[in-house]
């Protein structure tokens, strides 16, 4: 008696969202089955991988990173190398330096950096802010204007600044809006509702449901994503059908296991390996739970995760 297969199909799908323009545009989302279940049906567009670069350059980065970016001194030069990284689908510029509590780089300066980066690459661009709500809102508005027509995704609009970010990025300049909530299905849905009420079209929104490194409360990330996908597909909830994009690098590389020197924990072995594996394990887990795109930074992580995605297609 053969095994009776019962594929789990849904009469709903995750929205497909295109980033960038022309031949190099990349589309994320589109699945009408659970994450990575290509044996059940159409997974739409296989998960995509973004390569993160920081406007602060390579400060404190490990050898694998400095070697890969050797010779690149500006964000634009780094971006040109980043888009050539094997496995890269898009480039993500993280404007850490804009943080008023840090380098407090001016909005004008950030716009120039973003323009230079956009000019240096042909792959789609994602702009990540500095996590300061007011500064991000200002920043995103000016960059969205400067990069009009490039179809850029901005991470992120949060509940606190969704009005200004949504109005500028989503409405005035017709770019893509990332909606960031902190690992809670209700907060995620509420923010999507608020953004659409503002007039931003649902198909122009991607969700950052919040992320955590493996071992650091990842159970909340896993269950939030499980529930979001179940509602989006099983209940055809249009306010949760946005594709999910998860910045992994920033979380994974900032936990103790990825950061401490080998000198302090000799039995743990080289710091770079630990950081890479933390990034890889976290990214693989995010994809298993439902991320339609992940943002990574180390060349080894990007190569490994893109090979895994290819093997699961």
């Amino acid at each position, binding site marked *: 008696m053969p095994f009776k297969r019962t594929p789990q199909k849904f009469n709903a799908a995750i929205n497909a969202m295109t980033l960038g323009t022309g031949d190099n545009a990349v589309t994320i989302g589109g699945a009408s089955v659970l994450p990575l*279940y290509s044996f059940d049906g159409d997974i739409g567009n296989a998960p995509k991988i973004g390569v993160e670069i920081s406007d602060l350059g390579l400060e404190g980065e490990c050898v694998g990173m400095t070697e890969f970016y050797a010779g690149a001194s500006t964000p634009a030069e780094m971006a040109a190398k980043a888009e050539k990284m094997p496995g890269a689908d898009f480039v993500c510029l993280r404007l850490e330096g804009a943080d008023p509590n840090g380098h407090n780089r001016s909005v004008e300066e950030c716009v120039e950096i973003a323009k230079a980066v956009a000019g240096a690459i042909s792959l789609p661009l994602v702009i990540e802010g500095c996590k300061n709500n007011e500064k991000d809102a200002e920043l995103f508005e000016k960059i969205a204007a400067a990069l009009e027509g490039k179809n850029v995704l901005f991470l992120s609009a949060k509940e606190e600044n969704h009005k200004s970010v949504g109005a500028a990025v989503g409405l005035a300049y017709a770019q893509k809006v990332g909606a960031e909530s902190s690992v809670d299905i209700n907060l995620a849905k509420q923010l999507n509702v608020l953004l659409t009420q503002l007039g931003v079209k649902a198909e122009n929104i991607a969700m950052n449901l919040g992320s955590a490194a493996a071992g650091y*409360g990842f*159970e909340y990330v896993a269950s939030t994503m499980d529930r979001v996908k179940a509602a989006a597909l099983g209940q055809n909830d249009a306010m949760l059908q946005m594709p999910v994009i998860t910045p992994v690098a920033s979380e994974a590389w900032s936990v103790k296991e990825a950061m401490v020197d080998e000198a302090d924990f000799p039995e743990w072995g080289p710091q770079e390996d630990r950081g890479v594996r933390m990034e890889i394990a976290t990214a693989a887990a995010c994809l298993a739970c439902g991320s339609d795109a992940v943002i990574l930074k180390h060349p080894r992580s990007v190569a*490994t995760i893109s090979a895994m995605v290819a093997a699961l297609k």
Partner: protein
Amino acid sequence: MALKGLDIFKITPKTNCKDCGNPTCMAFAMKVAQGAIALDKCPHLSDEVKAQLSEATAPPMKTIKLGVGAEEHTLGGETVLARHEKTFVSKNLFAFTVGDAMSDEANEAAFASTVVDYERIGERMYVELINVKFGGDSARYLELVKRAAGLGRTLILSVSDAAVAKEALELTKGTRPLLNGASAANAAEMAALAKEYAALLGVSAANLDELYDTVAEIEKTGFKDLVLDVSSASAGEAFADAVQIRRAALKNNDRTFGYPSLVDVGAIAPGDEDMQCALAALFTVKYGSIVVMEKMSYASALPLYGLRQNIFTDPQKPMRVEPGIYPLNGADENSVCAITVDFALTYFVVSGEMERSGVPVNLLISDAGGYSVLTAWAAGKFSASSIAKFINEEVAPKVKSRTLILPGKVAVLQGEVAEKLPDWKVVVGTREAIELVKFLKEM
């Protein structure tokens, strides 16, 4: 097929005698249908009815013990496909691989995986299993079995040759290993061996249909301590099989696939530790009961064990850390004290930021029921009295410093705590952990 409450109700005595501890026969039937209580709680059912129903009301996925004594592990017994529906119950186990076809050097590198052994939030993190793979040289194989058996871990004997398997089982007698070597070709013989030595039996096949038939064949012999080996040359196939097996058992009540699974990610990506780590994470999240790797290093173990601990946490019981004094950055009795709650996530985030600051701090973890700061405060489990009691009883005798930092979120407690701890200087810390580095450096 699972029975509905009403079907079970029909065969109860319908006397509402309460002997089962439930108010009515109907309530009893509903609970049995949900799997909340066993059928034999009702003393008035005939054996015939019980036998007829126990098969139908048995849990969808078998719970199987692997290993013995302190090294006994539970596999299977899952009832849901997503942890938020209830909880996952049996964490996946990890294995490293040695074999007679591998070089001495490769075997030594694999055996070195035993250095990974540490504790994280009350759980011992180590490689629980050793996979000893047969490649044709039986003398060398049995030597490796002997050596592996002496390492205080449970073995997976990956061997399909019945004669060699018997010798290996003889060497590991009484340790309840996993004999991973049954296939359509040798199912009956291997099942008999596993039964004789009280071992678990791993079953593999070229595809799911063949696996299904082979399992059904073995079940006919009455032996049911099985593990389904979904290893394949391709990650995609292994993942598809692992998901479909678990789903068939839990969602479609197909008990032929109601067994734990095994996946050898070392065989999928030989020599590529990064890829093995990625696949191990994938199968930890989705339905691998045993994940076999070539070897385990701290670099892979730290994220994988952390991930596993997260995924297998009961959503209704938050992870807690042991209350006490945690000296950070070489803190001694004169270093400042900072107090917070015993919710594991809070501990990790706060201790991580404090370590980043490089400032010596005694991090005090008080018993707050495993809740986060604000939740514990609202529930009265993190109050001025509980803090004062903890400080006076546990901290004051051991620490000379008299500076105490409170979490910024409970700044409102400052006055009351200061009143209850007159010889302490009570300082309000930051609202968010991320601000701690700056705060501590400027203190």
